[in-house]
């Protein structure tokens, strides 16, 4: 009997996706490097010096894209967590796991570059307002997700626990979104978008590379995973 689409999603997906992701990663990586180089060129050689802030305004080219990514990645992670919980697909949980470290890194960068920008511009590294506090909570959500995943030995239980945490954490997102002032009209949007595209490509490349790792780790006892790397396990003519 042919497999239904749901069955395919449930059982065949990790192996097929492993190959597909492997083909996409080099293209994404090259795009990320090219867009990143273009973004840096705009940041340092095209963008003018800000009359009030001085050269420190160039931080906008990494701060804003990093802050965007910190939220986007969480939305995508929560989406895969929801798919995993509702359809019980292993690959969806693995995607969520693969996104968390990249999201945590961008959240850290958003906080770090924000602090460095804030000191010379507004006179403080940090203030306890809703925007900064909710971004800090976002960092703790990512780190909590990763810690929870590492702490639970049974992968099926870890998947579900992490997914629940990821979904609960979405309550934090509107807090960030509505507390950030809309500065779209006051920043060099094109350059920021170029760097944003670079960060997107980077994130997808990293998430796909990491999900390949997670797939191999989870499927290490399967015949296909062994055959990928060990010649004596190559599947014979079946």
């Amino acid at each position, binding site marked *: 009997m042919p497999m239904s689409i749901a069955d395919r999603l449930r059982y065949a997906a990790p192996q097929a996706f492993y190959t597909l992701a492997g083909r996409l990663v080099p293209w994404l990586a090259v795009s990320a490097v090219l867009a990143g180089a273009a973004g840096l060129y705009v940041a340092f050689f095209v963008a003018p010096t800000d009359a009030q802030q001085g050269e420190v305004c160039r*931080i906008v080219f990494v701060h804003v894209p990093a802050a965007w990514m910190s939220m986007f990645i969480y939305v995508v992670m929560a989406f895969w967590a929801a798919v995993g919980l509702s359809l019980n697909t292993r690959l969806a949980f693995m995607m969520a796991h693969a996104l968390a470290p990249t999201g945590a890194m961008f959240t850290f960068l958003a906080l770090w570059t924000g602090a460095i920008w804030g000191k010379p511009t507004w006179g403080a590294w940090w203030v306890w307002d809703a925007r900064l506090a909710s971004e800090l909570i976002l960092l703790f959500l990512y780190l909590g997700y990763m810690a929870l995943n590492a702490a639970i030995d049974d992968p099926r239980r870890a998947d579900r626990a992490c997914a629940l945490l990821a979904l609960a954490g979405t309550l934090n997102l509107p807090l960030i979104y509505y507390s950030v002032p809309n500065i779209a009209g006051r920043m060099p949007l094109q350059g920021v978008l170029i760097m944003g595209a670079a960060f997107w490509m980077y994130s997808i490349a990293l998430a796909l590379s990491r999900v390949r790792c997670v797939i*191999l780790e989870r499927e290490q006892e399967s015949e296909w995973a062994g055959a990928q790397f060990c010649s004596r396990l190559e599947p014979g003519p079946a």
Partner: protein
Amino acid sequence: MGRGAVLLEARAGAGMSWASWSEFVAMGGQGAYVWGAFVVCAVALALEPWLLALRRRNIVDYLRRGAGQG
């Protein structure tokens, strides 16, 4: 004067902010802030793929030994 500085000076005519490498590095006296932000970003963006490559090597070495199949 290095080749880079020549390039920078050539571009300076086209409305760029920097006349020399030292001006570029100084960032109008805000170099510590600007480079503190950009360099940390560059390090983080390079460190993550590197750590991931180590993680991948771990599992690939394990599979290469055929350990997954006992």
